[in-house]
């Protein structure tokens, strides 16, 4: 984690996955699929017209998010949490091909206040581990 002035903090988590990037991307690309691969998110609804996704975390809190990018070429999914608790949030998931059947998945969180970046950022590692598990199981099948 690095802080460059103010209260904005950035956290980057990454994982190598023994699967091709399209398999990984297929797991991530659907906005309302997040409860399947992000531990602690129990519900997600998505309105494609407003591009607003509302997630419900297991502690019972609803958090609205705006989906910014779902780019199949770059294999990049970007969103921002718009809940008032955050003065700034930007979350990006990048799926990058390293070699055949070898993918790097990176989950970046930049947020203010910094404490929330830490809390979300810690959760994203669990998400990457789950994405890896799902993708590698798909490959085995």
């Amino acid at each position: 984690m690095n802080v460059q002035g103010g209260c904005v903090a950035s956290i980057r988590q990454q994982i190598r996955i023994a699967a091709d990037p399209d398999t990984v991307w297929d797991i991530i690309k659907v906005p309302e699929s997040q409860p399947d691969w992000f531990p602690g998110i129990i519900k997600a609804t998505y309105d494609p017209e407003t591009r607003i996704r509302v997630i419900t975390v297991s502690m019972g809190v609803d958090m609205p998010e705006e989906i910014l990018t779902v780019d199949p070429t770059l294999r990049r999914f970007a969103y921002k949490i718009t809940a008032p608790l955050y003065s700034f949030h930007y979350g990006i998931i990048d799926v990058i091909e390293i070699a055949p059947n070898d993918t790097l998945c990176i989950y970046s969180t930049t947020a203010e206040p910094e404490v929330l970046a830490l809390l979300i950022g810690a959760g994203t590692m669990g998400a990457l581990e789950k994405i890896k598990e799902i993708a590698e199981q798909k490959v085995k099948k």
Partner: protein
Amino acid sequence: MGRKILFITTDQQRYDTVGANGGTIARTPVVDKLAAEGIRYERCQPSSVVCMPSRASMLTGQFPTTHGAWMNGVALRVDAPSFAEELHDAGYATALIGKSHFEPFLDVFGRFAENSFAQLGIPTIEQPWFDGRMGPHRGFDHMEFATHGIARTLHYGKFITEEHPEYLTSFYPNLNMELNVNDMGGGDTGAVQAWSNDIPRELYHTDWIADRTINWLEQQNEDSDWFCWMSFPDPHHPWDPPKSEVGRIDWKDVPLPENYPESASERETLLDQKAAHWRLWYDGKLVSNYEAPKHWVPSSLTADQLREITALNAVEIELIDEAIGRVLKTIEAKGWTDDVDIVFTTDHGELGGDFGLLFKGAYHVDGLMRLPLIWKPAPSSNTSPAVVSAPVSLVSLAATFMQVAGLPTPEYVEAGPLPVDNDDAKQRNFDATITEWDSDLFGVSVHVRTALTNEFMLTRYQKGTVHDGSEGELYNMIDDPLQRVNLFNDPAYAAVQAELDERLRSHEERPADRATPGIVVAPV
């Protein structure tokens, strides 16, 4: 039938706030009586001066660099050793009622078991441990949680939310909108974290914890073996005891702490002798750790604010003492007194105005490091009352509980049972303790190690954000009990420094099956 154990902890309580230790502000007759009838330790140190690593050390009998919960916000791994597991497996009923804090409180995604039990509805949940044994968690059969104020994920928070919602906003808001420790002032003087709390005394968490402990004890069979950890969140800040009780102590009559020079220039001269982060924090230029309010500047603390905080702190301590008294009456009514060991301590201290500072952090001086510890062995054990002046550590508690229960000392613990007197301490080489500090959060890292004997305290700062690895503090604990004169690198004390350095080196190189250091997932 063996000896039963009541383990009482408070949170962030100074040694000198207990009457038996010379405290004059709070009245603590119940704890003083335990001290008179038992063993009072004059030099008990924590393994760490913040909650999570210290509490994990109590449970595991290991230092933070062994158990892996090296700073607040790092969960103790779920398969970490636990003396409660040993007791459970030996047939003890085991309970933890109050503040646990082996896992982070700030838990947006509900990842940690401690934050889920209250929502699951009942305090005793039959679910498998990590290895398939049954019980709620970490060797405890029964857990009911509380912390400072209202955390709705915990049992006390749920109780207030559901049964007394009118008091939900009575407590001081621990965190501000940034989720940093709040710097808002209150009380009569505008003192940071001082607050007037409308909650009736009988609903305050101190009394709730005593009530729940009594309830659990009353469910135990007359001849059953039990261990109960009754863990009060007070007198940790915020200082927001029930308003009805605040009049017990008039803050205007409270003397200033011995180690609080009223003259700002004298405070600054003392701070300038110490490592750089002391003065940087005092001046508001660097908050080295999350546990202190990010936007509070210690140099702004006034003498009257300190008096008011000291008084509120003492009120909270009196409430705890009275709550303990109620629990002891239950034990007496059950006819258990002769067979119950009682241990009273805290997880770490509070700066309490020393050098003009409050709260806690990487500041290894007596305010944070010298803890109240009293052990009243069961009268049936025929252990004589004693005062132990040898340095001991909270790391010894796990082995002590094993010994009381008649169980062998587990191989994983890093300190033997507490000595019962000074001869015992001498025979078993209780001559030094070690305290660790590691923190790395939001771009600020601090790493500290301290070795303490009865005569000297050496603190070494490892390389970090504001330390280059060459800094240190050395205090003569006999001539300078307030740790005001830094003798580090004084040629006259070279031999002493070398000896304590060797103790630190031995600690770092000790053979131990160390857990991989955990990941910081929250600030607390």
